[in-house]
């Protein structure tokens, strides 16, 4: 899924007085994940299995 999805909606303006050193603020971490079984079928799964078994990332996989 490397192609961008275009959402025709507008980002809000930066609030008055917003300030951060490198223009970003980290506010929290993600919630815990759920362990689930993905179905071992289809071309996308095979790519996932290949990455997982060879411990590769998406970008390495694209090369």
């Amino acid at each position, binding site marked *: 899924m490397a192609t961008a999805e275009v959402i025709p*909606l507008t980002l809000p303006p930066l609030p008055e007085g917003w300030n951060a050193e490198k223009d970003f603020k980290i506010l*929290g*971490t*993600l*919630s*815990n994940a759920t362990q689930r*079984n993905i179905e071992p079928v289809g071309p996308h799964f095979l790519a996932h299995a290949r990455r997982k078994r060879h411990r590769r990332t998406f970008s390495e996989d694209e090369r």
Partner: protein
Amino acid sequence: MSEGPAVNAAEWFAIGISFGNSNSSIAYTGPDGKAEVIANEEGDRQIPSILSYVDGEEFHGTQAKLQLIRNPRDTVAYFRDYLGKDYTSIDPTPCHQSAHPQQSDSAVAFSIHDANDEGPSSITVSEITTRHLRRLKQSASDFLGKAVNAAVITVPTNSSAAQRGALISSAKRAGIEVLQLVHEPVAELMAYDARPETVVVDKLVVVADLGGTRSDASVIASRGGMYTILATAHDYELGGANLDQIIIDHFAKEFMKKHQIDPRENERGLAKLKLEGEATKKALSLGTNATLNIESLTNGIDFSSTINRTRYELLAGKVFSQFTNLIEQAVKKAGLDVLDINEVCGLSQAVHCYTRKTHESQVILSGGSSHTPKLASRLQSIFPVTTKILAPSTFPTALNPSDLAARGAAIQASLIQEFDKEDIEQSIHPMVTVTPHLSNAIGVRLLSPSVLGESSPDFQPLIDVETALPARRVTQYRVSNTGGDVLVRVCEGVREIKTIKPIPKPKEDTNGGETDADSELESDEEEEEIRQIVWNESRPIAEIALKDVKSGSKVEVVVNINSDLGLQVTARAIGSRGGVRFAVDAPNVTSDGSI
């Protein structure tokens, strides 16, 4: 899987097989990548899973099904769900009008005359399955002109390890190496997704497999082309046989009115009614009326009569409700609402609810009973209007619901047949398949257009809940006409179902709480509430400022989430250099060890 075919990979020539209690299908995916269901020598693509023995000769498929009238005791039918099961745990009901299941050690067997000049022999369900699969293999080999030696076979989502093992062994004895067993609803979804026009989008799919003796419904999250089953529901007493019964009873009553004899009390009469009634039912899926013709139904009396679709649908109303209930039950078990099986409506305040084009939802109707038009139209009325109901009567380019499972299996077979068996087994191991999935959607805050011309901030998902990790998504957003500094606020969000109550009308006399539960009409006396999905921010993750963005340009946000829930975000105005890039650490491992 490894980089290429392993050195000593066996030479597999593999097909896809769907093996149902009622029917089986075989399919093949050629080098052109197209999956085709293969007709057997009789021209059938839905091959009845039935074997019959007459004077030592084996009949299979439709020929065997016809023997249910003349020769029911030496005809074995509806046996799939007995394979790998303990005799004490089976339901023998579907076999009332064919060879009865018997106990053999702890397994199931049938006592049949399968050879000439001999008494009956006890044939185990494993052996029956082997014979059935051998016939399917032969038909496929004859059609393809090359000996088939391997297959991907579909199984119900809830089949046990013992059932799977027994199927693999039975296939092996038939000369078929099972490369992989795949879940029926997943194969059925894959049959649709493998079409060339399909684009990979994140979607929620309900697969309703409405068969002959059982029906199963599943809710599947499809994320980046990978499938996760969220919930399933099963009904072992619901299928096309219940609809056949409606037809049988209708015609039997008509016959009784004329002749004062109940044809259902005569074994052969009932078998004829069942066979011909099923054909009449199928004809009603296409035409508005259908005729039943039976020679010598009972006591030598011929019978001919017609039924129209409206009448049939009225009689079958309750059975149709059982099918739709099963599907609604699966949606509920997944913790979802029918509204979730819809294009994702992101913006609550928006009057024109914006739907993400790349996100869609489908209800796939599979299995023979899914040809029934009324079932598809009932579902269309339960789910939001925008939900695609993929059935012949509601979706012009729907695939044949009877073909889906075999097609999906054939697609998988073509994907893996070049690999080593060991390689395949490693890839389907839980080490590879058990994966962390997002428990909340991740999105950004956006301005929602409002009728009043004012804008209010709102959450819009960017990565859906239940996405398998690692995951990466790229999204572009608009910048206001004035341009300037914009905020990208990344957060988790949860969806809520908001009910808007209509203004109550003054009630007229109520009939003391009595309801006509049997009413066939689905008239909803209650005032219609409007229910809709609303997204709310539930947990802020980060904020990014993008300064001096040109008016009318776009901002691209790339989110990458690792398996440990660490997150990298990049935001930049398209066309500009640089942008903001940062990483959010993985959360601490909790005490129970889950991440």
